[in-house]
């Protein structure tokens, strides 16, 4: 239960001022001398830097010459995920724009020529200055078409307009295809037959570990993938 703080008054030795000052200087001198005589380790992983006698205590990084890589789950700059043929996976459904609390996504939908069903984003602009980096757009997307896994932050710029990233700037990074993608399940007229075959060949049955941070909050993609695999195996061997 509750216990009393040790807030007793200073005793005579402590009131005498110098013993405590010397003890404090001792602590500081330990750091100071080590930092003076030994050079800084440049390992960006601070915890992995060697410690103790003979090593510097310095925990800084000389940014921007040295940069600590962002961890895998870091919510960085957005990207629109491409399909294998280079077109965006996005179907312009406006879910991300609705989920965005900062209302910084602007989408203009257009019909894919020659395809009666499919839409694509004729315009897809994210205002990185308004973005609060919450990641809700990624969670809201039902097509895994927008991700924040670039491992970069929004680059500085001299003009505001450069922070408006449009679909050309956003569309980058590795392509993703799932077997459940509608354009693979029915012959989509907008995609040539050979390209479609190639995409189907490289499509994955379900998200796997490499998609871990592009996925639903609260569910581990690894666990879900293992579950699905198990189910598939059970169905395969009755």
């Amino acid at each position, binding site marked *: *239960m*509750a*216990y*009393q*703080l*040790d*807030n007793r*008054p*200073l005793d005579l030795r*402590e*009131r005498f*001022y110098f013993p*405590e*000052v010397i*003890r*404090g200087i001792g*602590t*500081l001198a330990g750091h100071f001398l080590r930092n003076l005589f030994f050079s800084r380790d440049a390992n960006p992983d*601070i*915890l992995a830097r060697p410690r103790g006698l003979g090593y510097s205590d310095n*925990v800084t990084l000389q940014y921007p010459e040295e940069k600590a890589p*962002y*961890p*895998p*789950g*870091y*919510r960085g700059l957005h990207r629109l995920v491409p399909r294998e043929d280079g077109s965006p996976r996005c179907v312009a459904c406006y*879910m991300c724009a*609705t*989920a965005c*609390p*900062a209302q910084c996504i602007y989408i203009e939908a257009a019909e894919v020529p020659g395809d009666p069903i499919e839409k694509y984003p004729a315009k897809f602009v994210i205002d990185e200055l308004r973005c*609060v*980096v*919450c*990641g*809700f757009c990624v*969670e*809201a997307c*039902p*097509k*895994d078409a927008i991700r*924040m896994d670039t491992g970069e932050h929004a680059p500085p710029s001299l003009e505001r307009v450069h922070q408006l990233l449009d679909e050309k700037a956003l569309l980058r990074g590795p392509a993703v295809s*799932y077997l*459940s*993608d509608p354009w693979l399940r029915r012959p989509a007229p907008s995609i040539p037959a050979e390209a479609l075959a190639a995409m189907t060949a490289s499509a994955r049955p*379900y*998200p796997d570990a490499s998609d871990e*941070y592009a*996925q*639903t*909050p*609260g*569910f*581990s*993609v690894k666990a*879900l*993938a293992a579950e*699905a695999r198990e189910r598939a195996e059970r169905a395969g061997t009755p």
Partner: protein
Amino acid sequence: MSTEVKEVLKQVGGPRSSELDAPLSSKRMLVNLGPSHPAMHGTARAVVELEGENIASCKLDIGFLHRGFEKSCESVTWTQVFPYTDRLNYVSSIMNNVGFALAVEKLCKLEVPERAQYLRTITSEIHRICDHLTLVGALGLELGAMTVFLYAIEGRDLLWDRLTELCGARLTSNYARIGGVSRDVPEGWIEKTETTLDRVVLLRDEIDGLLARNRIFYDRTRGVGTVSRADAIDLGFTGPCLRASGEAYDLRKAAPYLVYDRLDFDIPVGSNGDTYDRYLIRIEEMKQSDKMLRQCFRDMAPGELVVRDFRYVLPPKPEVYGTIEGVMAHFKLIMEGIQVPAGEVYGYTEAANGELGFYLVSDGSGRPYKIGLRAPGWPMLAALPIILHGALLSDLVPVFDSINMIGGEVEQ
């Protein structure tokens, strides 16, 4: 005054000698501290009236960080409130996330899975350490101990690095969700965090060794900004400031939530209610948090992170990609928001600065009808003019720091 000078003064018609010998008329001086003063953390302005070097009256001028938190929340869905709560107490954002999530879950009568409860506790306690480290470091800085600040920030940054790995951002963590938490711990994270905590313990002990028994620090803080136990209760103090005044009241013990009833920890209490006790209590609470964290790491079992109820949480993505039920549940949640049952509720948690309360009114739709926030730092800040009455001007800054006013939460 020498007679020659008096003679000269008389000749030139200067002031009479009686006038010169009179004491200076004491005019009160008005001093403006802040809003952008390096010592006033979190943009608050104090208009101080000085009688000599003593504070005759102090008026606080706040609102420089006012963002209309309560009103903004009414125009977004329940889920979209989380990024706003991140920015209340920005040093310990997850505690605000958790406080809000718990309040909404109280209204929905949702029971969160155990692992999610443990993760919420862990992240909250890590953030409590971050918050206290910031305060202790800044308090040292105000009194001229720059080194302490650097050590504290080193510890805090290491902890923030761990939280970045867990939730994807350093400050604006956006970690909790209604019905659970957003992510599970990455591989090896627990061991890494334990190593980090070991490092933080070293830094904390070093800081305490430099400050606690140091006469300069002691003389500047002991007996300064004293709040008696009765006053503290009357003024509505909660959290470390109340406990420093001698009242052993902690919501984690008084009304346990999450897994606090299973953890073994004690509440430190002070007796003087001065700045020194408020400093000591932070150091002790960091020790208790450290103890709790290690217990959580030991006891936490693998399990689900969110309730599997797709009225409240987004369905897993494979279902959204592949099945019509998944897409529909997903679509309803994104477009209309979580349908929180109509009613009102007051949810309270023990945040780093005291009781963090959310008063929610729902009309049964996807958006909050009204949100009221009880910011933990506000009663302490409001009491500052009373605490400081008659104190020295130079004591204003350490006292201001020791109540830990965070602009984001006080000014909402």
